[in-house]
């Protein structure tokens, strides 16, 4: 059965790609399968490469030398800082939201 596409900040392609590259350099197909494993989000190849293009232009990720036909990408220092900031913001909102959802004891 086809999965319902997930939406929201945790399904943002750029964030997911940066989170995937936080563990080390990877190529397009590797990033796509990794995201599917850790976030349960299946990015289309077009969406993946549009997001990669934007991230490269913003200098948040950088291409490395080609291995065969595959070109790995790595998270830049600026990308790591941006990702940290984004994830901290998300954690803060998630913590407050979850705390407020808990029944008052």
């Amino acid at each position, binding site marked *: 059965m086809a999965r319902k596409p997930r939406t929201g900040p945790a399904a943002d392609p750029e964030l997911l790609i940066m989170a995937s590259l936080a563990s080390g350099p990877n190529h397009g197909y590797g990033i796509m399968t990794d995201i599917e494993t850790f976030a349960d989000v299946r990015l*289309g*190849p*077009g*969406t993946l*490469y*549009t997001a990669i*293009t934007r991230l490269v232009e913003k200098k948040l990720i950088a291409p490395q030398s080609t291995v065969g*036909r*595959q*070109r790995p990408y790595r998270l830049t220092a600026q990308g790591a800082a941006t990702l940290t900031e984004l994830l901290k913001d998300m954690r803060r909102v998630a913590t407050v939201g979850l705390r407020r959802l808990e029944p008052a004891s």
Partner: protein
Amino acid sequence: MTKGWLVALLLRMYPTAWRRDYGEELADILLLCPLTPRVIADVAWNGCWQRGRTAEPSTILGVAVMLAVVISFVVTGGTYGRAWVPFLQASSRTFPPFEVTILASEIFAYLLVTCGCWTHLRHRGRAHESGVAAMRMSAIASVPVMVIAVLMMAGMLELKFVGPRLPPPSPLAILLTPLVRLPGAWIYGALGGQLGKWIARRAATRSGA
């Protein structure tokens, strides 16, 4: 064989410069994945998006005006005859016919100025480059008019004109008019370039202050 052909076709939807940088990688992924309708739609949509993102202002505005011209032909369908009658004839669901002076309205002149201004703001070029961009926009927008003129010359389409202009222009005049208007488009584009220059200077002054 069919998959390779489809992948090549999908990649053609992306701009050449983009294909040079990412084409091989995307092709590899597409050959590995099953090409479901969802994947095809995703790649096609993103290809169009990349084209739109990297397109020159003259192309974007030219195509927009071209579509407006085509739609205006369809909307004012009651005034067009013979061969296309079933498609173009006025009905209770179309707007009543109104007079459209194609590529000569003030809106078109403003769009030529906008094209020149936008081109300058993107490339910071000279007035001549803005003028050439406006000429390009005008040429793209003229395509449906010229196609209609050719169809009229070939006897495949009969155009009936509304409004006070009599006698109606000949198909050759309709074909040549967009070309004759190109120098005018250059002037509007160059003016737009000057406007862009002024805007850029003003923005630089503000950011410096």
